[in-house]
């Protein structure tokens, strides 16, 4: 009986993954295809689109801008979100519900609202649109998500260790930096990663605020609007391989780190014996 249910779920999972990856397969196939459309039969193998991609200054600049924006907004929003989380957990007693509701508002609204309000705000104050403005808006969205994620992860952790560190002689800054921060580091990293993902994928807000500059989603949108360009397929291939590479890198680092720890503990364990 158990096996029967498992088989059903397994098949469903396989079909689901095929469904998710189907467009990706298509994109991969047509990145090397000679013809420009997505039509079968295939016209032959070519690296043409790859060379065209590396010669396209706009595409490369768009990727660079997207990375800069995502890195900056992820870092800023993680800093702000982490300090917000710790501060709220440790010291906010009155008006907590009101504050939480306020902070959850960006999550409850479509990013379109934030994009429009930011557009109106910056144009009314005559601040020029461009990358800094986009970063600011991405941070505004991400702070709430970072806060939510960190709240979810920190709940099980007892933050009284800060008081303990203070009792043992640390000053306030040290108590946070050396004691609390390493404990909440996984939550901080999760928040940073989520924030990076939000910014990297965020098209709507960027669309309204980017002005004359290019980021990857904007570049893709313009390419797709005015016709098919296989260069977007090439971009997708690179992104996929890069993501897989990063995942393998992180997994390898974790494995090596764990093995080193075990070896060190064993080593020193033997000395103590």
């Amino acid at each position, binding site marked *: 009986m158990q096996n029967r249910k498992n088989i059903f*779920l397994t098949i*469903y*999972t396989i079909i689901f*993954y095929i469904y*998710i990856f189907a*467009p990706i397969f*298509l*994109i991969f196939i047509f990145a090397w295809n000679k013809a420009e459309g*997505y039509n*079968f039969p295939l016209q032959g193998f070519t690296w043409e689109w790859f060379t065209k991609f590396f010669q396209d200054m706009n595409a490369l600049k768009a990727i660079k801008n997207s990375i800069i924006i995502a890195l900056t907004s992820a870092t800023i929003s993680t*800093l702000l979100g982490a*300090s*917000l989380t*710790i*501060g709220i*957990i440790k010291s*906010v007693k009155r008006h907590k*519900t009101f504050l*939480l509701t*306020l*902070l959850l*508002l*960006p*999550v*409850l*609204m*479509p990013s*379109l*609202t934030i994009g*429009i*309000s*930011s*557009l*109106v*705000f910056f144009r*009314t104050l005559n601040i020029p649109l461009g990358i800094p403005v986009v970063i600011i808006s991405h*941070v*505004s969205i991400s*702070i709430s998500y970072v806060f939510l994620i960190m*709240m979810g992860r920190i709940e099980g952790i007892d933050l009284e260790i800060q*008081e303990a560190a203070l009792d043992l002689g640390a*000053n*306030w800054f040290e108590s946070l930096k050396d004691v609390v921060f390493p404990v909440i580091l996984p939550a901080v990293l999760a928040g940073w990663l989520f924030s990076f993902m939000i910014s*990297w*994928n965020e*098209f*709507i807000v960027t669309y*309204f605020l980017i002005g004359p500059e290019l980021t*990857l*989603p904007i570049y*893709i*949108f313009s390419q*797709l609007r005015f016709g*098919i360009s296989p260069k*977007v397929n090439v971009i*997708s291939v690179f992104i*996929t391989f890069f*993501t*897989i590479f990063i*995942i393998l890198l992180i997994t390898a680092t974790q494995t090596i780190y764990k093995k080193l720890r075990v070896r060190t503990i064993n080593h020193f364990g033997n000395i103590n014996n």
Partner: protein
Amino acid sequence: MKLAIVLIKFNNYIHNLIVIFTKSNINVILYYMSFISKYNKKIIYPALIWFIVFFIFPLFIIFIYSFATNYLFSKELHFTLKNFLLIFQKKHYLIILGRSIKISVITTIFSIFFSYPIAYFLAKKTKFDKILIVTLMIPFWINYLIRIFAWKLLLSENGILNQILLSLNIIDKPLKVLYSQTAVILGLIYTYTPMMVLPLYATISKIDNTLIEAARDLGASRVRAFFDITFKLSLTGIFAGTLLVFIPALGSFAIPAILGGTDSVMIGNIIENQFLHVGNWNFGSAFTLALAGLSIALILFYSKLFGLESIYKNREF
């Protein structure tokens, strides 16, 4: 940076002073603790200030715009309800509001149904859950625009879907799926279902298996145990996933623009049109506020429906 150094030195000084006195004076300990508490309170200020300046204040500005008729610093600025009334006067806009809600609700429901088995399988039934979750996220890094465009070509009349169905003789003529509400719904489901899997997986994996075993021991059938225990405990995850699916779907305009036709114009398209092509910022602001209000109201209603207000109301942190 200098300010931070000064603050730290000051804190050190105070700290040293207090350590001398702390050993014998409980009142100073309490004072010290409240001192620390004040510092802890202070670190929320940067985020709060950012939040107020770059989120609350812009909302306030479009609030003003939506009640006005002209630009903010122009001479002929007067209060008017015309913008909001326009939404209700023209049936066109009400239809679009209703249609957007309908599309988003359908998308969310299908998302829940599609993602629940996956989340359940990954959380409970397999050892490879971490690898599979990570694999699921890989397509997410390729911008959804590209994947939606691949869908566009998949669904078009010469597209692969039609080619397969035709060659298998399931249909006689190519299906006109593209440029319809169905295509938009399909695109939205495709884009946002992975977002539903994550919170569901997180919630389901926290469910203690012993609870289910206890239910089975007390005589519940597998189905009953599932609905009474697993499903009820996963409602939090469903709620979180709904936030990540319903709200972006409600405000989307790129997917309706790419996959939809004239019968699938959504709120986002109207707003984009007003701000970037028509130039009527007043009406656009009113409509944006309507979208925001609608979104918040629907989520609050939805959470009351499931009795989930406790999630954000009185949590003990």
